[in-house]
């Protein structure tokens, strides 16, 4: 039987990698003036201004990068991404943005001392430096848009609250809302795998204990353990009965049911690059099996988030930041998921057995000081009135789309609170200026071989899957809306997604003003 996923190991991560910048000579017209320089801390930057510059200048902030190498990954030096880069298409939108008349800039997000990691605080000042530098050197800038992806979004969010006058619009691409909410779920995944598959997995309990290169290698070891067991499960679709924990050993529950349970409890998307969560075949006989394979396919990135971000965060807030002593495991499996995926979970009795045994397993008790710092990490007030436009993939497996929904929810709560204060006579009148866009997957796209095995090597779904993987149309639609919002000071109303204008951007963007992706399991 074919392997369904490439053998996981430390070699298989997609975070990072090197890029070839699109040379300005490749831009159609116009001509472009490129400026390379260094920020105050020595980090390199690049700016490009086209001859048809329309006054709107975009400053790109790429996502989190681990500070240390591993096979296939070298920490970037210099400017890593000039504009939003699609991992699936292996292309950015530099040429398109220059052609549209936007000025662009980006910079090496390395902190002073040469390390990347989770450097939100440094990042805020570096971004300020970049914006100030751009304004000083490109004197005909009218509007500045700060935009970024993934682990850079905490930087941008803190930046715009600290320096509200430095930018005119904010773009958050596949972004984190509450950092601790996302990482808590990633840590839960490690824990659940330790319960049901490999008791030697320590997961987040091991992150941050050692720092630097040693800590990085220790975290890689945890990732490799998780990767190895997922690889083993992929060989037979997780058909073998669970051997752990001991009380479940005689129950005959297949491993894949525990994988599906863990994935649902963590919120891993049940659609992936090749699995649409619906299609069936002789081998993938029911949709919940399709969803299980999707979770398997998504697990690499989900674990990668936990591993590298977890280690980097652990070095900042301290080891012992993960605590699940108060986690209600039963509550993490919704009634809807329990019903919808009942077959893949092996039925009510198996669900009850797995959750029951799980609830009796020893918990991970964290260090209260580290836990407190973890929960407060990257905190913002959601008090910016600048137009903020978010774009997420429905089935992003690394930074779940629920982050965007949580951002909007928190922003709305902040807006209502400030509005109430304003009406009571204090503060300034707040502005509701947030707009969320979601790229959806096609309804069905799984391909099967004649034998009924899913094709996990073919082209990925055209939209909605992967992390920071968008079509050019989706990215440029987002960019153009940012530019427009920067000019007017107003983000579109959410009702705009139902308009014919919005529908023309890309056929896979959600046109439902009330669309919500799967929500995060935690809010903080």
């Amino acid at each position, binding site marked *: 039987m074919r392997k369904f996923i490439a053998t996981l190991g430390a070699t298989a991560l997609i975070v990072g990698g090197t890029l070839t910048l699109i040379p300005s000579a490749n831009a159609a017209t116009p001509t472009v003036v490129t400026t390379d320089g260094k920020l105050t801390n020595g980090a390199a930057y690049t700016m490009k201004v086209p001859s048809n510059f329309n006054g709107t200048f975009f400053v790109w902030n790429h996502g989190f990068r681990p500070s240390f190498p591993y096979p296939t990954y070298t920490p970037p030096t210099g400017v890593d991404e000039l504009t939003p880069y699609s991992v699936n298409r292996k292309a950015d939108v530099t040429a398109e943005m220059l052609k549209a008349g936007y000025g662009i800039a980006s910079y090496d997000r390395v902190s002073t001392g040469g390390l990347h990691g989770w450097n939100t605080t440094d990042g805020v000042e570096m971004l300020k430096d970049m914006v100030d530098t751009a304004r000083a050197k490109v004197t005909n800038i009218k509007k500045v848009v700060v935009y970024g992806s993934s682990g850079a979004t905490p930087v941008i969010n803190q930046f715009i609250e600290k320096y509200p006058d430095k930018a005119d619009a904010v773009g958050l691409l596949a972004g984190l809302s509450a950092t601790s909410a996302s990482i808590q779920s990633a840590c839960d995944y490690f824990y659940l795998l330790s319960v049901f598959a490999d008791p030697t997995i320590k997961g987040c309990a091991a992150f941050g204990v050692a720092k630097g290169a040693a800590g990085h290698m220790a975290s890689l070891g945890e990732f490799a353990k998780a990767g190895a067991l997922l690889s083993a499960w992929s060989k037979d679709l997780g058909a073998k009965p669970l051997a752990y924990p001991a009380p479940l050993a005689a129950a005959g529950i297949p491993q894949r049911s525990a994988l599906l349970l863990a994935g649902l409890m963590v919120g891993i998307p*049940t659609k992936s690059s090749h699995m*649409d*969560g*619906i299609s*069936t075949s002789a081998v993938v*006989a*029911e*949709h919940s099996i*399709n*969803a299980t394979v999707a979770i398997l396919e998504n697990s690499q990135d989900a674990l990668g988030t936990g591993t590298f971000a977890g280690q980097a965060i652990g070095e900042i807030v301290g080891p012992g930041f993960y605590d699940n002593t108060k986690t209600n495991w039963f509550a993490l499996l919704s*009634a*809807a998921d329990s*019903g*919808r995926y*009942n*077959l893949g979970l*092996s*039925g*009510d*009795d198996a669900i009850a057995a797995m959750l029951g045994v799980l609830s009796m397993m020893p918990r991970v008790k964290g260090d209260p000081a580290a836990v407190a710092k973890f929960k407060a990490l990257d905190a913002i007030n959601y008090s910016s009135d600048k137009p903020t436009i978010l774009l997420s993939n429905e089935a992003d497996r690394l930074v779940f789309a629920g982050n965007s929904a949580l951002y909007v929810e928190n922003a709305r709560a902040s807006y209502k609170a400030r509005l109430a204060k304003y009406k009571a006579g204090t503060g300034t009148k707040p502005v509701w200026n947030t707009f969320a866009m979601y790229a959806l997957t096609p*309804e069905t796209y799984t391909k099967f071989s004649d034998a009924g095995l899913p094709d996990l090597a073919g082209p990925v779904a055209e939209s909605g899957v992967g992390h920071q993987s968008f079509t050019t149309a989706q990215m440029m639609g987002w960019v153009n809306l940012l530019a427009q919002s920067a000019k007017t000071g107003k983000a579109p109303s959410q009702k705009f997604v*139902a308009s014919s204008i919005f529908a023309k951007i890309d056929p896979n963007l959600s*046109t*439902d003003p*009330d*669309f*919500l992706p799967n929500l995060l399991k935690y809010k903080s």
Partner: protein
Amino acid sequence: MLAFVAGVAVSTLAITALPATAASDPGVSATEIVLGMQLPQSGAASPGYNKVDDAMRGYFDYVNSKGGIYGRKVRLVVKDDQYKAGLTVSSASSLINKDKVFAFIGSVGTQTHISVIGDINRRGIPDLFVNSGYSGFYTDPTVYPNSFAALGTYVVESKIVGKYLKDTYPTKKIGILYQTDDFGRNALAGFTTAGLTFEAKKTAVNFIAGTQGSLGLASQLTALKANGVEIVIVAAVASATAIAVATAAQLGYKPEKWVVTSVGSDATTFQTILGSKGITPAVSAGMLAGIISASHAPSPGEATDEYVVAFKKINDDFNKGPDKRWDNNVLQGMNIAYMATSALFGVGKDLTRKGLVSYIENNGPNISSAALSPLSYSRTTHEAFKSFWIGAYDGATVLKPIDGTRVLYTTDSGAGPVTVSNYVRPALPADAIAKGA
């Protein structure tokens, strides 16, 4: 014979003015009300259920032929979800965003509807007359304030049938085969509340919903047989009932009685499934004969019931579906559309989503229905029927009251007792269109 269908030329609907339009609610205009429905029109779960939508549309077309509801024609948009929850989610999105339905109606399937009920309610869309008896959808309207049942809950039905079995067969060993999902759990809870006791894996056996076709039910039935179960309850969908009965026959297992929940006893599905296994209709009718079940409605074969007669005629004249043979699925579809028409008329010309939900909550028992049980909708529950009569199938696949006398029993979805109901169903309006409470 009652005059039941307008062969008359004059419509009884008086339209004095163009109706007010609900400016803010999608799916309703001066001329049209758009309703959306999800069900398995194809796939393994579809036999029988795939007739419900055509029956509903047939009734709505009849109403439209009489001028509609305050001048608005009812248009039913149907999506085939193949009983796959992933398709239920995507097709719900399509109904909401592309078809812009005013309300959902008659959606079929507990395990599929559970994937969308939260989102439908979040959006404030009425979710009318869901074809699921799962009590968790209805007994606490604060959870799903816009969802209303089309069936009695499995708990209510099972309590009533359970009491009957306990009283009638006090010395017999009773066992249960149920599917492990909310449907099966609900039914098991009801039978247990009624005082029946089961022993797991001996007299209570289960299967994962959806596996009855691929894995069969031999091991479960073998366990019941080995433990001397004399009366077998099947709390599962109709395809599972058919497989259970056929498999038992193959095993030489002849329970004294089969008892099947109403949702699982549909004759069309039963015979279609067995037909696909080479069992002729005559033989499968014989297998169905004697099976005990319950119903809140008249049997489709009750030739003198005025609602049956009227709906049958409307079905003949207006159902354009590929299989319009009269059976329980068609009767249920007609009744749902009839109830919906009653409610839509009752709201009045100023039709809004909130207004419709409020109307149903405040007028539940007065909404017209072909059922022999009153509707129970209120602010504290969105259950439909709390009364059932118990019958047995005859050789012609018609469910008939046991001992020839129909007794309607009533109870709640909690621990309340089972008592006899004296409800008398109101007469059918002359044109078979109920215009509100």
